[in-house]
């Protein structure tokens, strides 16, 4: 089942592409540093000064090749990487001017690649033989599949959803990254020679042990699950959304078929919460309020996401926690309480203990509640396959990502490492595990000769 692309103007990409002359001006600002800090700041190690120089030399296609050689999801990362914390944060020009707009230049190259003929990638210089299964076609799985396919392995990817791309396809709002970008990247990996099995869930459509037996290595890259329940009364009422379901709906349904209501509360203050809030605004909600139990200093959304939501007219209610969703058949209000940190705790810390202010309860008059309080870890999966866990997290080797099961690896968000979960870090995981798998299989092959 293919996704119907949403081309609704309400969800058009907000960041415009550089005009050719803007791109040239910006490319010429790059100093072409030696052993450049931007490269070190990129988890996938894209050779940024080289691709920018290629743009400046009018070799835009070569620039795209430079990017894709290091990061097959260069088109996604050009749009959604937190560049100020990564490459642009490392740019030396922040010292004498402002950083080079690396992300937008990367988009120039990748936009060009997307409208050009398929571009062969350079020989990776490493060659192996064997069969590798990748479970999950999200960023980590695509990163691993790409690297192993380029090394010569037979790689098959098993994906539960009808399309690949994982969160890039289903979880990123279209006005940050159009759906076509993510699907183009999946197609690219397919063109490299990776086989995809969509709509295929391990344990349902294919036996886990059978998979292990058929492949020399299995890489698990299933990501995280849905948004967990809040554990309050009334949260099963119609009108309560999982934020990820909402974003997915905006990409797979006609926007007019989504009933977002008029007054919306979003619970949580991460990037997904901001996405859900801005989605709700664009879908026509009149009032959208982000409800967070701490305040702005503790919120985990990037600063630019916070500003973006404010510009969209989203309001924030700090030091507030939902205690009950009100309504008979569907949401009619959200009972909230005010919070404060316990005496002596640091009110700017995300770790500080909170307490409810007695008698502070009030009702937010809303008809939609969206919960965006993180994602569940796939702990059931680890139990199912018998991989060792610690605190519900699968145990993997820091260097090789190998689990306690021989020949089974786990990468990406499903590790539940906490902290920043970015696409670029997932792709980097994929490249690292590919190398580890290659080394392991090379040793095995040598022994069996």
């Amino acid at each position: 089942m293919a996704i119907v692309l949403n081309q609704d103007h309400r969800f058009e990409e907000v960041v415009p592409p550089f005009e050719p002359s803007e791109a040239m001006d910006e490319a010429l600002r790059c100093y072409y540093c030696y052993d450049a800090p931007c490269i070190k700041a990129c988890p996938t190690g894209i050779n940024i000064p080289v691709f920018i120089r290629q743009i400046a030399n009018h070799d835009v296609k070569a620039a795209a090749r430079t990017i894709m050689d290091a990061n097959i999801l260069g088109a996604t990362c050009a749009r959604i990487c937190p560049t100020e914390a990564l490459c642009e944060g490392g740019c030396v020009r922040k010292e004498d001017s402002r950083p080079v707009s690396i992300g937008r230049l990367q988009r120039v190259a990748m936009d060009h690649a997307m409208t050009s003929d398929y571009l062969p990638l350079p020989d990776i210089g490493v060659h192996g033989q064997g069969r590798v299964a990748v479970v999950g076609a999200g960023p980590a799985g695509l990163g691993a599949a790409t690297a192993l396919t380029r090394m010569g392995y037979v790689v098959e990817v098993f994906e539960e959803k009808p399309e690949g791309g994982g969160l890039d396809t289903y979880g990123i709002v279209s006005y940050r990254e159009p759906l076509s970008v993510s699907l183009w990247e999946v197609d690219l990996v397919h063109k490299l020679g990776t086989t995809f099995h969509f709509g295929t869930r391990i344990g349902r459509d294919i036996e886990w042990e059978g998979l292990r037996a058929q492949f020399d290595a299995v890489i698990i890259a299933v990501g995280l699950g849905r948004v967990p329940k809040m554990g309050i009364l009334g949260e099963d009422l119609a009108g309560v959304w999982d934020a990820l379901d909402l974003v997915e709906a905006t990409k797979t349904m006609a926007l007019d078929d989504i009933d977002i209501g008029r007054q919306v509360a979003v619970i949580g203050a991460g990037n997904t919460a901001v996405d859900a809030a801005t989605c709700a605004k664009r879908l026509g909600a009149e009032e959208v309020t982000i409800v967070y139990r701490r305040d702005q200093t503790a919120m985990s959304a990037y600063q630019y996401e916070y500003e973006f939501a404010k510009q969209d007219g989203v309001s924030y209610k700090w030091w507030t926690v939902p205690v009950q969703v009100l309504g008979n058949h569907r949401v009619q209000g959200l009972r909230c309480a005010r919070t404060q940190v316990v005496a002596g705790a640091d009110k700017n810390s995300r770790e500080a203990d909170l307490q409810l202010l007695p008698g502070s309860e009030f009702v937010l008059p809303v008809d939609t509640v969206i919960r965006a309080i993180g994602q569940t870890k796939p702990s059931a999966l680890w139990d199912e396959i018998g991989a060792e866990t610690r605190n519900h997290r699968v145990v993997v080797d820091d260097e090789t990502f190998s689990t306690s099961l021989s020949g089974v690896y786990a990468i990406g968000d499903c590790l539940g490492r906490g902290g920043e979960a970015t696409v670029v870090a997932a792709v980097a995981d994929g490249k690292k595990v590919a190398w580890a798998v290659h080394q392991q299989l090379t040793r095995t092959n040598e022994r069996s000769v």
Partner: protein
Amino acid sequence: MADLSIDFAGIKSPNPFWLASGPLTNTGYQVSKAFDEGWGGAVWKTIGDPVINVSARLASIDYGGRRMMGLNNIELISDRPLDDNLREIAEVKRRFPHHAVIVSMMFESNPQIWAEMVKRVQDTGADGIELNFGCPHGMSERGMGSIIGQVPEYAQTITRYAADGSSLPVIVKLTPNVTDVRPPGKAAIQGGADALSLINTINSVMGVDIDSWMPIPQIDGRGSHGGYCGPAVKPIALHMLSSLYNDRAVRVPLCGIGGIETWRDAVEFLLLGAGAVQVCTAAMHYGFRIINDLTQGLNDYLDQRGIAQVNQIVGKAAMRVGDWNDLRLSYSYQLVANIHADQCIGCNLCYVACEDGAHQCIDRIPGQKAPVVREADCVGCNLCSLVCPVPDCIEMVPVEHAVSETWRQRQERLTSFS
């Protein structure tokens, strides 16, 4: 306010900025407009037997996003009737009696023609004539232009043809397409030149279109060599200017030409011996209006230094440019690079430049942003300070050694011992 006016070989001008002979000075309309906007003088586009031109006529090279770092032309001298040019020259001179109008001339090597033409130019009321011995394309292939400037005997002879019949100052414009500009310059003086101007354009092929394999510019599939000018040629002009200024046999005023775009460029020419300067490419690029920056900038520069008259700076740096053999050798005087770590932005360009293109004397220190110069191995070549994008981050620090010795002194010392 400093006094910017000059008297250049008897030609008076309210400031030292003249438009060079070329497309800017093709008509009375243009020269009048330029004077209205503040130019001190103009050298009229070379008059001669009217020519027929080709199209296209210009090409440029761009660098780092800036257009026209270098400009090349294959346009010839004036294609307008002689009578029209002479009439407009007279009209402009009547309207602007205090501005300098110099008429560039190029005719075949015939003394009668020169005598007659010089007479007609004098009758316009023009302030001087400039002999175009420099044009490297087209006219040179017809026995005029740079073919004259490249052969000292020809330069002397033709200058004599013009000077003998002229009551006006005669400026000879020299071609840089020679190994040494001094012999043709001195020959022109012997032929009666009252002043020299330099440089004319440099012979060049601008480029090739790598898709079509056509030369740039191309005229229906063919190209030719043309004259190169613009900011890129300034160092060549400065060298030739200083070599003439420092030659004891050259006693006439020099007019500097070549890549002047800002008042700073002009000051450099003045300091190396130019009594006036001519501007072409920059005004073709941005229009006559740049004259305001030129005059204001020069005035401010002189005022800041308490210099009352612009001619007081002419040649003040020239004596410092000379023979390599008179430079102190590195065991006598040496520079050592010093990277100011507090200003370093960590681009490592100095490191890779020194490592690959110089003397491998810059080290990177793990965990530290700024590289460090290994002073004992630094030869003081300047490369690191040139590639560093941060002004003054890399300082070249002079180190005095006990002896003071140049190559010439060293040779003398060694000879005296033997």
